[in-house]
Each structure stands twice: as structure tokens, then as C-alpha cells.
């Protein structure tokens, strides 16, 4: 337990510090959501029905940015070897890394998302739901993102490969998250969509530790 705490502190420091993880992700997210109205041609009313979808697409893309940092840097500088030799199983280390990624990137994005969604034309009353769904979805992004990052380990231009591996895996949370916002906009309860979103997170939480650890061991060999 103590060891995992030590790793957790390091991962948070790395995610928040150098490379501007959260700031970069939030800045990228805001740029994307600001570009869409400009590209779609100044009719705010036309954007309103797809505002939730655009916000979720931007969330998914912004979540990919710092995934390369998650394992690739540690593989390059040998820290991954040390992490493998630690007292905690590699599977748990993968989870700790993904959770730190969630807190450092998913958290700030969940706080930024309502702002962008409201700018895109979503009613301000829906802002808390946007934040909540983005927070749940962010955990899913972090977990499957960690799996993608582990699978892309050691490949040349791994960053691009991560995006290609991970984006298809991000389809369900984008569908469910945007679905929750759409249901609310139509006066329905967002609960079923949120439940699907949570189910996705649970699925990712089961698959990522084992598949991620296996991918890391393979990359070390």
C-alpha cells in the first residue's frame, strides 16, 4: 500500500509538472470547441443540438494528448524497469498511473467542459451534468488510454500510434456521454446513459490492468 502511495505521488508530480499536462489538455480542449462554431459558420442555433456531441469529441481528443508521457518516457529512461521491480504488482502500478492521469488531466478537463458546452449553446442549467459525465468519462478515457499507451510502447512515433489505437476505444464513452446530454436536452433522465458510461469505466478497469501490464512486459523483453 505504502509503495503504491509513493508511486501515486510521483505520477501526480510528473503529470502536473513539466510538459504542462493539464494546462495543455485544457487549452487544446478550449481551442477545439472554439474552432467548431467558427468552422460551422456563425449560427449558434444550428450548433445547439450537437453541442454535447462536439464537447465530448473534443474531450476525447484532448484526453489523448498526454498519453504518450504515461509509459513511453518511463520506458525510454529505464524507470519502467524499476517500476517492474517494485513491491507492488505491475497491474496495480498501471492502475495507479491511469488514476493519476485521470486526476491530472480528466479532472481539469471536467471542470473546463461545462464552460465550453455552455459556449456551444447548451443551457447553463446542464453544466453540472456536463461536469459529472466528463468526470466519469474521463476515468474511462484514462483507463483505456493507459491500455493504448502500453500497447504502443516501443513503436516508432508511438504518439500517433496511441491515437489510432485509442480513438476507436473511445467511441463508447463519447456515445454514452453525448447521449446523456442529449437525453437531458430532450427532457429525459440522463441516468441510463450515465449508467452505460459507468459500465464502460468498470469494463476498462477490469481489462486495462492485466492487458496493460502484459503489454509492458512484452515491450521490456
Amino acid at each position, binding site marked *: 500500500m505504502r*509503495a503504491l502511495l*509513493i508511486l501515486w505521488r510521483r505520477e501526480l508530480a510528473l503529470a502536473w509538472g513539466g510538459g504542462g499536462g493539464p494546462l495543455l489538455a485544457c487549452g487544446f480542449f478550449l481551442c477545439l470547441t472554439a474552432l467548431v462554431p467558427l468552422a460551422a459558420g456563425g449560427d449558434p442555433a444550428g450548433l445547439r443540438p450537437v453541442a454535447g456531441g462536439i464537447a465530448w469529441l473534443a474531450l476525447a481528443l484532448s484526453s489523448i494528448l498526454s498519453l504518450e508521457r504515461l509509459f513511453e518516457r518511463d520506458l525510454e*529512461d529505464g*524507470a*519502467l524497469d*524499476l517500476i*517492474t*521491480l517494485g*513491491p507492488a504488482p505491475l497491474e496495480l502500478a498501471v492502475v495507479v498511473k491511469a488514476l493519476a492521469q485521470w486526476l491530472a488531466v480528466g479532472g481539469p478537463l471536467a471542470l473546463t467542459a461545462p464552460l465550453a458546452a455552455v459556449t456551444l449553446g447548451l443551457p447553463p442549467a446542464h453544466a453540472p451534468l456536463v461536469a459529472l459525465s466528463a468526470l466519469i468519462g474521463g476515468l474511462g478515457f484514462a483507463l483505456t488510454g493507459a491500455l493504448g499507451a502500453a500497447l504502443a510502447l516501443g513503436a516508432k512515433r508511438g504518439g500517433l500510434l496511441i491515437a489510432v489505437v485509442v480513438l476507436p476505444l473511445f467511441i463508447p464513452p463519447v456515445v454514452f456521454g453525448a447521449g446523456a446530454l442529449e437525453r437531458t436536452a430532450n427532457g429525459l433522465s440522463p441516468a441510463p446513459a450515465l449508467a452505460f458510461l459507468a459500465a464502460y469505466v468498470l469494463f476498462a478497469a477490469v481489462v486495462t490492468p492485466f492487458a496493460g501490464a502484459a503489454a509492458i512486459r512484452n515491450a521490456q*523483453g
Partner: protein
Amino acid sequence: MLTVSGLSLIRGERVLFRDFDLALASGEAVALTGANGAGKTSLLRALAGFLRPEAGAIAFADVDPTEARAKHIHWLGHLDGLKGARRAREELAFQAEWLGADAAGVAAAVDVLALEPLLDLEVRKLSAGQRRRLAFARLVAAPRPIWLLDEPFAPLDARWRAALGLIMQAHLDKGGAILAAVHDPLPVPARAVEIGR
């Protein structure tokens, strides 16, 4: 402490060695020699569990390999695992504590390796020799009996090679064991094992 029997390693298409045997006893240092590319690093990585051998067995005294790798093995390779952007103090604290050191152990390592003046510097500002000392500190800080070292002395000057020799001797005197891939002789009495012949 460590017994290797009938080990075969293959990297890609190339057979590095077959039927390699080695026994490492408590208090013993073994200097692993061999030409460049003979498989010294690969052998060490296999012992540390990073590489899966083609055939053969690696056994640790009293413990199963997973347990040994989690608690008994120190690994110091070409890559030191230090993050350039972080301060030496933070990196040492993480590496040492992750591998099981307590605060007293870290303080002792800082003392023995004269790291105090370097602790507040970013790792990227350290020279290669200073980095190596910082990486070596985790071996002193966290008590683990089996040291697997890959070219541990390459960037160090004569004075620090001698100083590390004393640290290694102290480790051997406490019943530890050292397996080091080297080109120059180890600064402690060691049995030489050549691979790739």
C-alpha cells in the same frame, strides 16, 4: 542465492548463448565478461525478469522468482530511470522508497555517496558521473541482497570507482551478492565468468 541452469537466450533470430550455468553465492561477486554483443546485458535482464529465456531455469534461494524480483533484486542498467526535469532529491526519494528504503536508508545513501550538494539540482544538470552516483544511491538506501549491475562504473572517475568498491565490499560482507557485467576489473575480489565462448 541465485542459480542459473541450462539457460538459453535468443534475441530476434540470433542465439546469444545456450546451456549457460551460473551459481551466485551469498557474499560473492561475479564479474561477467564477454565481447560486445555477447549477451551480458540480456543475461542480466533475464535474471531481473525483463526478458523471457528460451530455455533453462532461474532459481532464487528460498523464494520464488516473482517474490525475489519484488523484494530481493536491485537492477542498475545503462538507463538509470532518472527524470531529467525533476530534482535529484525527489528522484532519489522515489527510487529508493519504491524499492523499499526508509528515510534513514536514504539519509545514509546521501551521506555515503556525498550527494547532499546535488540534491536540489535538476537531474539534467548533473554530470554523467554524478547521475550514476545518484542512481547508485538506491542500492545503498534500500536493502536488497542481489545486485545486478550493467557496466556500473562506466562514467565514474577513479576516486568514485574506489569508493563504490568499498560500498560493494560492505554489501558482500553483509551477505549480499553482486553480479556485474564489466569490461574493467571490479574493484572488489570477484570471480570472472565469461559468456559467449
